[in-house]
């Protein structure tokens, strides 16, 4: 691959252990999976909605399933992966809580990045213009944005607490700036972080998930 890596990809590349089994949800054309395969020798699987993305992944020799996070995560068996990656996509799914919970059922760890709606620029844009903010991280107008479930850093950490998830690491990402390790619970970061990338795991043993066979009943 040519050109610089997307900032979130560089961080993800740093976080993922070599030889891990990785599911990339919303993998696009497979750039991240390709880099992870090359640099970390991962065993990768992609999930992607668009036909173009799926075609591109196949051409790259990646394992990819055409589908979406809301509908298709339920069918993966428990602990099938070491990492599930959902980069800049959680705010676009119909049921973010379910998706987040599913990510940490099918994988030991989840890498999730979300644009922070609590960022000072977003807040200022809303206060000064009285209209839905359009920023670098959230460029579309309200009527065409795919981001249907925006949240602030605080909202996200509180959802993690609800789901009994542990934040193992949190990095603030902003275009043109070096990534910054942050304390996701610190109130100031809810103003400062433009996009936050989390490494998450389950705090305690998850409740026993239904066995794969029961899941399979749905479509047998």
């Amino acid at each position, binding site marked *: 691959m040519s050109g610089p890596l997307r900032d979130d990809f560089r961080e993800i590349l740093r976080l993922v252990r070599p030889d891990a089994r990785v599911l990339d949800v919303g993998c696009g054309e497979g750039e991240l999976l390709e880099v992870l395969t090359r640099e970390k020798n991962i065993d990768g699987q992609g999930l992607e909605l668009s036909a173009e993305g*799926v075609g591109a992944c196949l051409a*790259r*020799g990646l*394992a990819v399933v055409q589908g979406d996070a809301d509908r298709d995560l339920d069918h993966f*068996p428990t602990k099938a992966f070491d990492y599930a990656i959902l980069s800049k996509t959680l705010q676009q799914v119909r049921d973010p809580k379910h998706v987040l919970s599913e990510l940490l059922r099918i994988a030991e760890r989840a890498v999730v990045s979300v644009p922070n709606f609590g960022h000072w620029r977003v807040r200022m844009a809303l206060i000064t213009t009285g209209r839905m903010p359009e920023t670098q991280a959230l460029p579309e107008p309200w009527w065409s944005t795919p981001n249907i479930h925006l949240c602030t850093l605080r909202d996200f950490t509180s959802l993690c607490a609800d789901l009994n998830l542990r934040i193992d690491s949190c990095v603030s990402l902003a275009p043109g700036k070096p990534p910054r390790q942050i304390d996701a619970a610190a109130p100031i970061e809810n103003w400062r972080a433009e996009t936050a990338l989390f490494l998450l795991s389950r705090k305690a043993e998850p409740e026993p998930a239904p066995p*794969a066979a029961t*899941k*399979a009943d749905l*479509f*047998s």
Partner: protein
Amino acid sequence: MNAVAIPTGETGGGTHRFPADKPLRLDSGALLSPLEIGYKTYGALNADKSNAVLVCHALTGDQHAASTHPTTGKPGWWERVIGPGLPLDPDRYFIISTNVVGGCMGSTGPGSLDPTTGKPYALSFPMITIADMVRAQAMLVEALGIETLFAVVGGSMGGMQVLQWAADYPERLYSAICIAAAARHSAQNIAFHEVGRQAIMADPDWRGGAYEVQGVRPEKGLAVARMAAHITYLSETALQRKFGRELQRDGLSWGFDADFQVESYLRHQGASFVDRFDANSYLYITRALDYFDLAGSHGGVLAQAFLRARAVRFCVLSFSSDWLYSTAESRDIVRALNAAGCRASFAEIETDKGHDAFFLDEPALDSALRGFLDSNAEKRGLA
């Protein structure tokens, strides 16, 4: 139909006759012997025998996938995919295509001679299943000295054979490509087949299946069966685009001639089909399809069928306008593969051409096949 046996390993194909001590064990419990399998090969087997690809045909297909059909003189049914520079390149792969057991192009079927009577089996031919077809293919592959197939590929009924391969012989597969198929026949699938079978059996020339010894053929019934089935292979959009309400001649006949082009087209499809296909084979193979239920034969859970196939690389493809084996059916397969922990790729190809898109000019299919095959060939070390 009883062609000369070709020595094992020879390329090009022919008919492989298994010795009497190697009968085909059928799901029904019966033994089929002697067993003959008609097949074609394209390309050459490499030194470590790692480049073999088995291509499985659909209901009315045969082994002539990439060579001129001996009866019709038409190009092979998958010449768009198999050939130099194409996704299945004979310069790279050793491609094997067999006629299914129960068929009528060289493999043992209801038209073959029953050794106990010296007459064609007709309806005394045992019932066969998709698993039986696959078992016979596995015997041939073994007879050709091939331990592991680089890929098994098929569309429609061929795709069902691919799934059955994954369930029964996963250790003999490196990769599997299942196109426009389903893991079981639905009520609608069975219903359409029943219409076809009833059409054949209602033809007075069917003679309870014994038409061959009586020197007749149920051509009308078989043609109607083909006409009904052919509608299911096309999407409504494709049919409308191709024919609309266009007439054959100026004005209506005010009778029951083929006024509309679509009627003429279907009649032609039916009439040309009877030249190359056997009515009893049609009955047996459609029945094998109806009996197919991969979950049913694995405790009702489709994922169970794939538990041993975790090392196989799967590619499942469907067509958006296919209503015979719809995308939903392919998704069920993919979900079961995921649930079983298999490595699976899945793409729905956008097309309005319906089920038959798999034979037709569909660049998205070609690029998906090429991407999947090329990348796996590289991993497998195939030049």
